[in-house]
């Protein structure tokens, strides 16, 4: 078969795929009679209202000298790890707002960090394409620097995101610029499975984010530059369980809904979307109209513990609090008192849902807590 012939067939096949996809989309639209907000309005729900003291900044964590790129909480003990442009990981005690560890990284270009479920170790990854694990209990050398306890190397592109499998200190899922996600066994340092890649049906562009289902840790979603999010089963590496189309730009961030049956995405197209993993439907689009043509990208999202609120950071410095039921912005953290002076780059919710940590380009992290008479939602 000649090259030209092959190309022809490829083009034809692509056309078929696209038309099928279009039909699928039409079918979905016809089946989906309403979205969450429409239904909630019908039910007479009203948006959550925020008083001025309901969400207050109660700690500022100072210590980084560069932009904060990523943060993660421990499930217990209220510690936070943050990664910054200055090439350091800092482990904070969120209660005293003091640092407990500063880790100077061998490769300064770190993009992501994660706390292990037991709080014993932290992981980070970045442009060096390696996911490095630091054991916080290992003795420090005289420079108070922690040695790398494990290097997970195998990615062929930058490590964009990493997350420990809940309740397991030994497994970790990373996403990478090489279009794959990898499930690692930390004890051996080897890849357990590779999701996507050249010969498999996976992402066709850089994967930017992963999120593991909290209630069923076998399932995780990944968001990618190919404008899709994919749902994976860790037992089936060869192909994605489901692909979620809808975004019109890179999917920068994905986050599972607390109940594990839905997940949210944030994208360069300025929208956050809520998808249902059982039906594959897109449940809701969260989009705030801006006056000018510049659509701010969504950089990071996180759900509140009940899922009623969606915190979303935007590239223009806003950080909206969405009411997920009514798709209304109820608060803008970016304009709140004592807010960051630069844009909010990463968000994280403590395990009990009572505090939100934001990392910003102004090198600080801030902890926000539900104050006053407001209960945690």
């Amino acid at each position, binding site marked *: 078969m000649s090259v030209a012939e092959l190309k022809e067939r490829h083009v034809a096949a692509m056309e078929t795929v696209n038309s099928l996809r279009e039909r699928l989309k039409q079918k979905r639209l016809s089946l989906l009679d309403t979205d969450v907000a429409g239904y909630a309005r019908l039910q007479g729900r009203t948006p959550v209202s925020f008083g*001025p*003291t309901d969400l*207050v*900044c*109660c*700690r*500022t*964590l*100072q*210590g980084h*000298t560069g932009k904060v790129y990523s943060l993660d909480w421990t499930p*217990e003990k*209220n510690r936070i790890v943050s990664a910054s*442009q200055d090439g350091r990981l800092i482990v*904070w*005690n969120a*209660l*005293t*707002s*003091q*640092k*407990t*560890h*500063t880790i*100077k990284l061998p*490769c300064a*270009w770190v*993009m992501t960090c994660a706390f292990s479920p037991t709080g014993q170790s932290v992981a980070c990854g970045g*442009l*060096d*394409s*390696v996911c490095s694990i630091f054991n916080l209990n290992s003795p420090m050398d005289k420079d*108070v620097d922690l040695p790398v306890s494990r290097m997970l190397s195998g*990615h*062929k*592109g*930058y490590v964009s995101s990493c997350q420990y499998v809940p309740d397991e200190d030994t497994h970790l899922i990373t996403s990478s*610029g090489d279009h794959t996600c990898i499930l690692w066994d930390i004890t051996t340092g080897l890849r357990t499975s590779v999701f996507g890649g050249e010969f498999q049906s996976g992402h066709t*562009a*850089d994967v930017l984010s992963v999120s593991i289902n909290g209630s069923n840790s076998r399932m995780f979603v990944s968001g990618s*530059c190919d404008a899709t999010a994919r749902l994976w089963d860790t037992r089936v590496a060869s192909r994605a369980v489901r692909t979620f189309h809808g975004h019109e730009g*890179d999917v*920068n961030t994905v986050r599972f809904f607390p109940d594990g049956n839905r997940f949210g995405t944030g994208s*360069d197209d300025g929208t956050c979307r809520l998808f249902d993993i059982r039906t594959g439907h897109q449940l809701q689009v969260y989009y705030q109209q801006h006056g000018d043509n510049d659509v701010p990208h969504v950089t990071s999202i996180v759900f509140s513990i009940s899922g009623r609120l969606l915190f979303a950071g935007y590239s223009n410095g806003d950080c909206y609090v969405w009411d997920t039921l009514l798709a209304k912005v109820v608060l803008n953290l970016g304009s709140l*008192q*004592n807010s960051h*002076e630069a844009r909010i780059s990463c968000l994280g919710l403590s395990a*009990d849902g*009572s*505090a939100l940590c934001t990392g910003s380009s102004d090198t*600080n992290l*801030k*902890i926000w*807590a*539900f*104050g*006053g*008479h407001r*209960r*945690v939602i």
Partner: protein
Amino acid sequence: MPPFETSDADYVAEFSFAVEYSGPPVTYNLPCAVPIKVERIPVAAAAAQVSLSDKLSLPVVQPLLAPDPRSKKFSKELKTLGSDSSTLVSPTTVIAFDRNNESGRDCKELELVSEATVSPTSVIAFEEGNTSNRGYFRSGELSSSRALEFSNGHYASGELCDIANSSREFGFSSISHEHSPELLGGAGISSTIEFSDSFDKSLGSSLASRVSCSQKESLDTNNDLSQADWVSTESVSSFDYPSSQVSSMKIVDGNNESKCDLIRTPVVTFRDFESVDAFDEEYTQDASEKRMPQVKGKKGSCYRCFMGNRFTEKEVCIVCDAKYCSNCVLRAMGSMPEGRKCVTCIGFPIDESKRGSLGKCSRMLKRLLNDLEVRQIMRTEKLCEANQLPPEYICVNAQPLSHEELIILQTCSNPPEKLKPGKYWYDKVSGLWGKEGQKPSKIISPHLNVGGPIKPDASNGNTQVFINGREITKVELRMLQLSGVQCAGNPHFWVHDDGSYQEEGQKNTRGYLWGKAGTKLVCALLSLPVPSKFSNSCGEQGSNIVNRTVPDYLQQRILQKLLLIGYNGSGTSTIFKQAKILYNEVPFSAEERENIKLKIQSNVYGYLGILLEGREIFEEEELIELKKKHSSRIIDPSGNTGNNDDKTIYSVGPRLKAFSDWLLKTMVSGNLETIFPAGTREYAPLVEELWNDPAIQATYNRRSELEMLPTVASYFLERAITVLRTDYEPSNLDILNAEGVTSLNGLACVDFSFPQSAPDADIDAADQHDSLLRYQLIRLHARGMGENCKWLEMFEDVGMVIFCVALSDYDQFSVDGNGSITNKMVQSRQLFEFIVNHSTFDQMDFLLILNKFDLFEEKVELVPLTQCDWFHDFHPVLGRHHSNSNSNSNSINNSPSLGHLASHYIAVKFKRLYSSLTGRKLYVSLVKGLEPDTVDAALKYAREILKWDEERANFSLSEYSIYSTEVSSSQ
């Protein structure tokens, strides 16, 4: 509902978040704002700078006694400030609060100085100062920074749940640390101010006083209020600012002790008018205060909660001397990014008298925080930049140090220990170091270029004996005499760092000062310094420069980052490796070499595999050919030799055949890299046999037909047998040639510093400075640098981008992202445009490296440059117009080769492209990646550009041309 569960019982109460007020209803009125009438705001008039003198009297508000705290009577009075502290009156200062803690007074008075000027950019400065005027200074700085912010119409917010407000910009609100939500009834918890140019929002300023930490206590004090004497005043300043009401209260509580004074920090909260709606229109103040037993005027209570006495353990701010009790210290100092400083003091230099206690932890902190946290705090306290010794505080030989000099002094191999601010003398020849007017205290590294020349009277000696131009002290003379040096006739000695001394003007060394064992004893007796054991000779020191450890904050300052980018195959990796080999004493560690070895070996197996694949193809072709011939031979029997067994020149024996099949199979399955490092030993003999096989050699001779085989493969295949031995040690050239060694995954970086150009020449100031500078070459893979590249912004702090283009790419084609076949030079150009246009590299200098000039020179003779569409208008002028081209560029000599002409043409193409994109100048350098000299020259050129960038401001336009020729000639 305490949302933020604390695991530590200690913190439960301390760190609870804002809680709804659940106490009894308040009986007093809550503070609220009074609207400003915009018309009545006077226009700002530039006030002449008031010269400060001790006698300066400033109008202040005189506190009036008010019988009832709820009275709304305000009296306006002015009082002269009788304190000895003077206040800086700047036109932008609206309200300045001073708290003067004067130890000489019986009672502590709270003085409110309210200066209202009337510029719309109002600034509030709180001054918290001691009797010294140091505090005022600082607040002057603060206020100016705040003025900027407010004029932008920012919302500044007073803060209530205040633990975390640490940013300096919100400094004023963080001084007003404590605003009890309890007392404000929850309704006014958020107090937001808007400072807008027009002041159309009414501003009310209420001076709310401190509220104690615990609610109970504040209620207690409320009960006391009736008994308390209240002083409530409202001041309208002399510059009449009608609606700004500022009150100060002084509460003298007499019901407890006979002489008891209540101290309170002035706290001002500006409220947005809307948010005050809920409040009564009345202007009240609520107060709760701490009583402080009078201990002879000595303050002893916590600066924040006003509890405790001077015997309670407290932590002291290393900047402003504020003292906090254990309950308050964490709130007042926040996360202590610079050690024990109040959040408002972060970024300010420390009190020099406290330098000695840096990094020494108190028991209180140890109790409050865990070991790791304390360690981090102490470490940052010692190492952070703001806490370092300011260089101008150190005078060496009557010359204050510059920043670089201090760095040199502190990072030398034998630095003066525990450097304190002061005046020192330093003898550069011998390394003697001492306080001005005193005998030497230490021998530090010699030949450091710090300070001025030494003065004869530096150590205030009167012996008329001189060492290196310094009149020595009696003690030193005694030492010299005791160690047997002839000192008769007031000689002038010349003492070197190794202790050898000679008389001035004479050549022969008279002896060694430290040679004798007795000398050291004498020195110890006279408490004179002796050279330390580690004092290095000059030569050693030079090599130490690279290895010595530099504190982090310095590292950031002196590290210049160079970003090396290029399209695939442009030779960035070669340049990177070359830089490693050039500037690092040990370019590759043993581990790296081992990895490189494995990489090279598996590469060679890969090349072999390609060869074997080619062999199969060739064999097949040959067989078909043979068959054709065979069949033709049947028709025409006068054909070739009898070749019945299908053997061609490309056929191999069965054993090798099996090996090659296996190798190909492994390659197809992609397992080559996992199998081969281990299998090397086993297969080495086979490879040797294979390589020597005529079939492979025949294939190798047709290697140009194998597209997959990279050009560099021949270099390694010819050495295949050596390379594949287990004891193979890759040479530097091997490493340079090897593919995929730098990094598999896109990013690699190397730190280096340029070796000093002339080792035996005098080290002048510039060189000293250079030796500190370190460079980091970061090599990025072009892969994945597409439209959506999100991580390029991580490189916004690089000093320069070095873009690498392979000249020889002009006739190469490859498949680009869209699947179409494009010229590689054009793809390079596209990447170049993308990088130049990227917002991260806006205003950054670019250096274009035209790499692979050696290959290009050969190629351009054979393949016309016009092969690449971009270069369609290249019409080299050869022969007749020699002189023309000569005058244009001086680096081309009389007969420019086609290669030179073509490379210059390409350089101009890129320069034009660059200036059309940015309007700036592109620096270009021609490089042959495999030749160290050219890479060295290119990187030194990069250094010159960076230096020039720093110095550009100092040069006028006329000097520009001179300088730029220097740069190009140094290339």
